[in-house]
């Protein structure tokens, strides 16, 4: 779960990492008030979950409360990277002497937390050459020790008080990372401002699998309506832009199914991993989800392990009887209780395929002929 910038900054504050003074507003009038309180030039920042706001015009500067009001009313009218702006952060404009980059993330290959830092932070961090990026793994049993931030400071060229403050920010950021089950905490830029370190931005992503034990965090919904339905059913669902609705069981199998459809020239409408042991009711709901994508054909590819083929067959028939399925269904069904599943389908006039490739080719043929 990604947090909005202002939520990330609230977290930073609670972990004693300095952020610019400011507040979140939802209308231009409030913005003027906040600017007045701050009593100087302010920055107006759209709160959306996508990056590259600056380039899209989602960040404005204002020297007076009136200007702040004007800027906020402009930003609130914007749609950035497909996200409508509904909240805006108004905060003091800080002096920028140097922009650092600092992030902690999970490195799957090393199986450890990874610190990424650079003395060339700011908007173009992706373009900074490797030799200006410092990467250091953290032993999770040990945590962040002063020596580690001394080493990073050295590589970044930080000295004196800034280096000491950097140790504080890194230590606290790691504490946040650990205590809040973050997958990513990122400060870009971490600004050196009159000799002090200030987190001018905040990107925090929380591990979805840890949300049940992170109850005091704000809740942010990123999914589309249909993805949310799938998520609530415990299914992994991603919308795509094709016309073959796809259900398979297992993430790798689902990807393999998309690949096979693409190989035969088809365009999947979605990725849907029905997982293992979803049962008949869950499978029926998954099929209903597929119908919402308005496809030309439905392709079901099941290799029954925990999943039982008879459950899948019954689910399909149930949906068909209950609400009708207006498009052709191509189904491949092997594995646990295969015979029973095939029998149920046959009784209802559906012939199941034995191999993924035959079935995929058929589904693509139907979809392409329907155009």
């Amino acid at each position, binding site marked *: 779960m990604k947090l909005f910038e202002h939520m990330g900054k609230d977290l930073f504050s609670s972990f004693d990492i300095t952020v610019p003074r400011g507040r979140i507003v939802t209308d231009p009038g409030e913005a003027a008030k906040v600017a007045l309180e701050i009593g100087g030039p302010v920055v107006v920042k759209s709160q959306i979950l996508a990056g590259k706001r600056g380039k899209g015009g989602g960040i404005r500067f204002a020297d007076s409360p009136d200007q702040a009001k004007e800027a906020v009313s402009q930003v609130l009218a914007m749609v950035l990277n497909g996200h409508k702006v509904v909240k805006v952060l108004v905060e003091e404009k800080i002096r920028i002497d140097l922009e650092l980059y600092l992030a902690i993330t999970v490195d*799957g290959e090393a199986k450890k937390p990874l610190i990424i830092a650079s003395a060339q932070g700011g908007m173009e961090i992706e373009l900074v050459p490797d030799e200006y990026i410092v990467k250091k793994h953290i032993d999770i049993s040990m945590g962040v020790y002063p020596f580690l931030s001394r080493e990073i400071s050295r590589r970044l060229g930080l000295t004196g008080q800034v280096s000491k403050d950097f140790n504080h920010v890194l230590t606290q950021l790691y504490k946040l990372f650990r205590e809040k*089950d973050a997958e990513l905490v990122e400060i870009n830029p971490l600004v050196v401002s009159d000799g002090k370190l200030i987190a001018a931005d905040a990107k925090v992503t929380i591990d979805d699998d840890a949300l049940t034990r992170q109850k005091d965090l704000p809740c942010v919904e990123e999914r589309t309506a249909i993805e949310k339905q799938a998520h609530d059913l415990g299914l992994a669902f991603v919308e795509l832009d094709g016309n073959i609705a796809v259900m398979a069981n297992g993430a790798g199998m689902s990807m393999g199914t998309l690949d096979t459809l693409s190989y035969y020239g088809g365009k999947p409408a979605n*990725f849907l991993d029905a997982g293992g042991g979803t049962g008949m009711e869950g499978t029926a709901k998954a099929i209903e989800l597929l119908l919402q994508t308005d496809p030309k054909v439905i392709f079901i590819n099941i290799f029954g392990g925990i999943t039982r083929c008879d459950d899948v067959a019954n689910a399909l028939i149930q949906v068909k009887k209950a609400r009708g399925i207006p498009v052709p269904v191509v189904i491949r069904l092997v594995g646990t209780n295969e015979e029973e599943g095939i029998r149920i389908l046959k009784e209802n006039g559906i012939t199941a395929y034995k191999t993924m490739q035959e079935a995929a080719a058929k589904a693509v043929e139907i979809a392409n002929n329907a155009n």
Partner: protein
Amino acid sequence: MAIIINEKTNVIVQGITGSQGRFHTRQMLFYGTKVIGGVSPGKSGQEVEGVPVYDTVCAACEEQQVDASVLFVNAAAAKDAAFEAISAGIKVLVIITEHIPVHDEMEIVDFARCKGTAVVGPNTFGIVSSGKCKIGIPPNQFFVEGPVGLVGRSGTLTYEIVSNLTANGLGQSTVVGLGGDRIAGLSFVDILEKFEKDYCTKAVVLVGEIGGNAEEEASQYINKMTKPVVAYIAGKSAPPGKRMGHAGAIIERDKGTYIGKVEALQAAGAKVATLPFEVTDLLCQVLK
């Protein structure tokens, strides 16, 4: 022979009294796995499928040598259960549990590495040394003895390929599921090293996915292997930036792309199948 587990491996099931634990204990016993005990706090004295239940791993270890443990506990209890098994000195730990928080996974893998425990998973289907021992959840019928070592991440995709092999008369020495989460205990390279040394394994199949760079790392080792390797990488058609179920299956920037992985594997001498069922054909070629 086979790798990691064999017909002599004594296995305990942590979380044996849950529905998954019960079901798969039965399936493992059917397969011939030596399931010698189960652990479920507060349930000692019970039996599941004739297997004695203990309150703690130590209690089970007092009775017999325990070589491996498999976890069917829920995600919230997984770290405690894994630490219990590792602390007790169990050398193979198979973690079926999915949705374990990634910080817990990092801690488990770190502690296991320090103690010399091999962790298969988390979020894995398990490991099968065909005809000898199955630890995990794959359907029994497809796994028959033979010369192919297979390592993959996804369960059903692996079953798909294994069943295709078996249908074409190609059995397996050992099939290992690394697990679908971003953090996994054993890596491709760990498994490839063992297959390279295992004299029953004549050829190796690697079933990868887009995202991360595990397949690129594996390629470096494949380059040094004497045994032929056939690979399949899932996710060729996946759009960038979208998570596809597995945490690993996400492409960020230029890292972990399908093309990058295929080129690395081919440069290392592996044959890469475009679709899952082609793996069998390529294997037949390299085994000739």
